[in-house]
């Protein structure tokens, strides 16, 4: 083992990859209407056909017609637009928002796209009039709009204007038999199918044939380009592209490069069918390994050649981005598309699964430091120290990757949701941190986000919103009406039950509308049991059918209830009237009280058991309550504990809270994190606190952010200590953690906004200081030193 690790550690980035990266990043981003126009044309011509056939035919048309491009330098080809990182529009999912925002896409604060003037005209002339009232978005608005808006400050309902993503296809099967093999399977099934299933199989066959056509088009284009290209190496590459793409149309891949190309075609076509975020390759280091190993053993490939192919794929992952409306872009900033790859972890018999590819994936991340793929590493008690150390090294480079997932807690949590041990052991990640099985699951992991803090606000104020004065919840009374802490808890339960009930009804309805409006025959061909049952994945064809609801946010709940419990009920030092009035007036004139609540009552994240346990209790209550429901596809609802960047807009909806947070201020970040600046006892105390939240209740995924300074990773001792921190995290059974390695810019921000960086420590030999508590000239000195990386 040690041999290849040493060899991989020395590999350099190739000139080809550097050049391709540079070209990709310098190309401007545009809105692209090409596929939207083809879909519109196809729907117009086939109005009498069932929706699934219309969807299949439009995808087929796009695969045969959209303009394609090959850079003669690239080893892996394929995209859904000729330009890179284009914003693609899906009219059947939703375009009302594009109508509203098309003029401002180029200047909005987050995730901008250039828009050609002629495209704005074309959009308004051809696309918009046809789709009015026909898209998922319009139908959701029509049927559910009033309820969605009525509960909007408590529940953010997702999946209302785009197709389903967040799914991990059975790439292994795709590689094993290719589109031709899958098509054959569907044809066999069609022969025996009952009438109601025929249209599903016909649709599958249409899209798989088109997938083959798409590959052949790349082969032909490569051949055509040979006429103009004279450089020997480029010609060689084009000839290889021509050969591989033609082969993959009819046969499964055999070599490593063929397998990677085949994988990429799968993901491009999935993105074309469903313009959604996150189709996850999952455990690519496992299922690509046989192809890699065969080539290495036959001498066809060496490690540096394999790395170049992997990095070529990594670049491809960055060429497809996801266009969101401006509101959604606030919740999920930086157009995360979520090609999530999970490396490492364990085999079915509990051995360390990391291999050469796992290390090459980490190396590729180290070389490119790009946002995609979203690289995840699975750790468990038996992970090799070499693999853990390598993760530590790459984390220390500061791209926030790999993020770390914990087999020890995740596998039991998934089994607890009715997933088989084998599938749980083979888990992967979709999107940011959402957990899934491999190739057989529609996890619907972002059904909704539930704002526990808003419901607490309503519980303290007789169901009335502090921000608007609107009666939103039940009239359970005011804080001043609750005689005991237990009375308050009972009222909180009632309010939670009420909103959970209303949320589930909407989620179910949205779920059914996906089956109605956006069936996905191509995706269904690579999700286990759909072909078997003859049922589309959106209609419940998958082997597993889960729905995930995010409970937001444990830190604010723990901190707020700790204040009330300790000061109002246990000690009686704070009058309920005084606190309620302070909340109702957004602490106006009560700054001293607010400071007292922030500084003198213990907070979640500091290894104070009684405070952490308050958070744990309400997550348990929420997660147990969800067990009362089944989703539209017959599967369970379960809980996630993550917000990505939604803690900001969700905080915007919440009035002043008893933890000293002002109205509209952000909630705690991440999901499991402490309120910013309130974890004052360092990383070990934070991890201990987080471990008190039962990981079983985070089976949909959890998120913990931690910050470190780059100096930690500068010595071998530091790397080792960091690795042992990771392995303690594994023992503590926390599902997930990711690390921000704080750089100079962060320190500059910390100086300007100390309240958000209270917990940031500066460590120098033998002595630790809180950065924000240092005098500004000393801060400057540290900032200065940090820019040289000496700290």
């Amino acid at each position, binding site marked *: 083992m040690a041999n290849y690790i040493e060899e991989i550690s020395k590999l350099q980035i190739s000139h080809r990859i550097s050049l391709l990266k540079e070209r990709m990043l310098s190309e401007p981003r545009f809105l692209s209407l090409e596929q939207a126009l083809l879909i519109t044309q196809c729907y117009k011509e086939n109005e009498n056909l069932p929706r699934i056939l219309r969807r299949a035919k439009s995808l087929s048309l796009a695969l045969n017609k959209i303009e394609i491009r090959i850079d003669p330098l690239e080893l892996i080809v394929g995209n859904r637009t000729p330009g890179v990182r284009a914003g693609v529009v899906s009219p059947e999912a939703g375009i009302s928002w594009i109508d509203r925002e098309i003029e401002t896409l180029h200047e909005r604060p987050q995730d901008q796209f250039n828009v050609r003037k002629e495209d704005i005209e074309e959009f308004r002339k051809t696309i918009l009039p046809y789709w009015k009232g026909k898209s998922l978005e319009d139908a959701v608005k029509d049927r559910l709009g009033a309820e969605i808006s009525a509960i909007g400050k408590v529940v953010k309902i997702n999946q209302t204007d785009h197709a389903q993503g967040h799914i991990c296809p059975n790439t292994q099967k795709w590689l094993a038999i290719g589109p031709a093999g899958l098509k054959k399977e569907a044809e066999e099934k069609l022969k025996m199918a009952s009438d109601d299933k025929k249209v599903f199989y016909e649709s599958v066959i249409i899209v798989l044939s088109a997938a083959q056509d798409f590959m052949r088009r790349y082969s032909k284009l490569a051949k055509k380009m040979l006429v103009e290209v004279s450089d020997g190496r480029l010609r060689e590459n084009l000839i290889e592209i021509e050969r591989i793409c033609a082969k993959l149309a009819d046969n499964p891949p055999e070599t490593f490069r063929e397998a990677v190309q085949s994988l990429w075609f799968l993901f491009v076509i999935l993105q074309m069918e469903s313009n959604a975020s996150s189709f996850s390759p999952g455990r690519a280091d496992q299922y690509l390994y046989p192809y890699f190993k065969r080539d290495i053993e036959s001498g066809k490939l060496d490690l540096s050649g394999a790395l170049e192919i992997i990095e070529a794929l990594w670049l491809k992952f960055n060429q497809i981005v996801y266009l969101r409306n401006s509101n959604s872009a606030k919740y999920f900033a930086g157009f995360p598309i979520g090609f999530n790859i999970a490396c490492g972890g364990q085999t079915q018999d509990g051995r360390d699964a990391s291999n050469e590819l796992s290390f090459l994936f980490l190396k590729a991340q180290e070389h490119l430091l790009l946002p995609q793929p979203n690289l995840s590493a699975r750790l468990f008690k038996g992970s090799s120290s070499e693999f853990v150390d390598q993760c530590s090294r790459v984390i220390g480079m500061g791209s926030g990757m790999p993020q770390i997932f914990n087999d020890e807690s995740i596998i039991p949590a998934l089994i607890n949701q009715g997933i088989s041990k084998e599938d749980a052991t083979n888990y992967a990640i979709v999107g940011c941190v959402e957990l899934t099985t491999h190739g057989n699951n529609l996890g619907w992991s972002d059904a909704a986000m539930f704002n526990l803090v808003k419901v607490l606000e309503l519980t303290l104020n007789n169901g009335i919103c502090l921000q608007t004065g609107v009666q939103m919840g039940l009239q359970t009374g005011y804080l001043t009406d609750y005689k005991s802490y237990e009375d308050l808890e009972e009222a909180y339960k009632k309010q939670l039950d009420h909103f959970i009930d209303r949320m589930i009804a909407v989620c179910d309805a949205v779920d059914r509308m996906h089956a109605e409006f956006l069936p996905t025959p191509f995706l269904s061909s690579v999700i286990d049991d759909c072909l078997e049952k003859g049922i589309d994945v959106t209609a419940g064809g998958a082997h597993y059918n889960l729905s995930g609801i995010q409970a937001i946010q444990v830190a604010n709940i723990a901190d707020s209830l700790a204040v009330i419990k300790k000061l109002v009920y246990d000690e009686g030092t704070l009058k309920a009237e005084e606190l309620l009035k302070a909340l109702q007036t957004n602490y106006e004139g009560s700054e001293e009280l607010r400071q007292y609540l922030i500084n003198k009552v213990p907070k979640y994240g500091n290894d104070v058991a009684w405070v952490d346990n308050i958070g744990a209790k309400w997550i348990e209550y929420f997660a147990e309550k969800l067990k009362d429901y089944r989703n539209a596809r017959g599967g369970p609802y379960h809980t996630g504990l993550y917000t990505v960047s939604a803690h900001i807009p969700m905080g915007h909806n919440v009035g002043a809270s008893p933890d000293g947070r002002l109205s509209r201020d952000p909630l705690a970040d991440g999901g499991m994190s402490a309120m910013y600046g309130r974890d004052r006892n360092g990383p*070990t105390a934070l991890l201990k606190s987080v471990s008190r939240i039962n990981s079983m209740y985070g089976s949909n995924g959890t998120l913990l952010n931690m910050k470190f300074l780059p100096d930690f990773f500068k010595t071998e001792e530091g790397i080792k200590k960091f690795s042992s*921190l990771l392995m303690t995290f594994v023992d503590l059974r926390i599902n997930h953690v990711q690390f921000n390695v704080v750089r100079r810019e962060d320190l500059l921000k910390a100086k300007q906004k100390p309240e958000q960086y209270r917990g940031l420590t500066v460590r120098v030999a033998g002595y630790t200081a809180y950065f924000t508590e240092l005098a500004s000239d000393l801060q400057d000195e540290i900032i200065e030193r940090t820019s040289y990386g000496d700290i």
Partner: protein
Amino acid sequence: MYGNIIDIKKFAIHDGPGIRSTVFLKGCPLSCIWCHNPEGIDSKINLWYFEKKCIGCHRCVAACKNSALSIGSASPHIVIDREKCINEGNCVEACPTAALCFDGKRVSQREVIDVLLEDKPFYDKSGGGITISGGDPLFQHEFALGILMECKKHSIHTAIETCMYAKKEIFEKFFDYVDLFIVDLKVFNSANHKKYTGVENELIKSNFEFLASKKENILVRIPLVPGITATKENIGEIASFVYEVNNKIPIELMNYNPLGENKYRLMGKANELLKGIKPLPEPELDALYQIISDKGVKIAREKKVKQ
């Protein structure tokens, strides 16, 4: 039993092997002019004022029974009359932002041990443990010893960071309960030692010889203060001394830490000496380590990651 501590720092990563928790005890027999934990010198607990955290509510002014606090001319901040202040703590209690706080606290051995036990999973995984530092652990020696004995009962690796300025009989009591001795040798010349630390160093040297004759796990640290300890001559003399005592004992150089100055401000003091002193640049550090190597003494220095 009760003692005065500055604080307990978790996730201490420079006070011995692995991930550790370090207890900083109050009280030190030396008063080094460069001390970067100056609150550790006095064994009593004193008032600190974080001006930046003060919101100017002036609750503290009313709370103080000794009229030690007043509203400064540069309001909203307050002025502390350190002569009148008897560290009673009414102002600390009243302050909503913790701008006023104590530089330490009085705690029982049990309380300290309970906090130390909280991070046991991290010690076990990383080969870490606990360290007692200060101030100096030999100053409140009975308190320190009790903590160390209890930690050994829990099979926790223990270290102390000491200047070894204590009666030999007291120092010896620690030998059975400490796994790693991190000992400071600051200035070799005794007259200079007295000039900069307040005491002569004969006792320190003889205690070091005694320790080396009885125990094995010893690390010598030299705090580098430019112009005072960080001279070729001083480093050379200390290295020769260590070599004669036992050439297997390694030496680590602790580069000057400029952050100590901030603490003087919190205490309402100034330390003119420290103004403008910078840590040694890498090449000078290399040169001093070279002197140690040349004397035949092992060096303890963290290995840089290759980029």
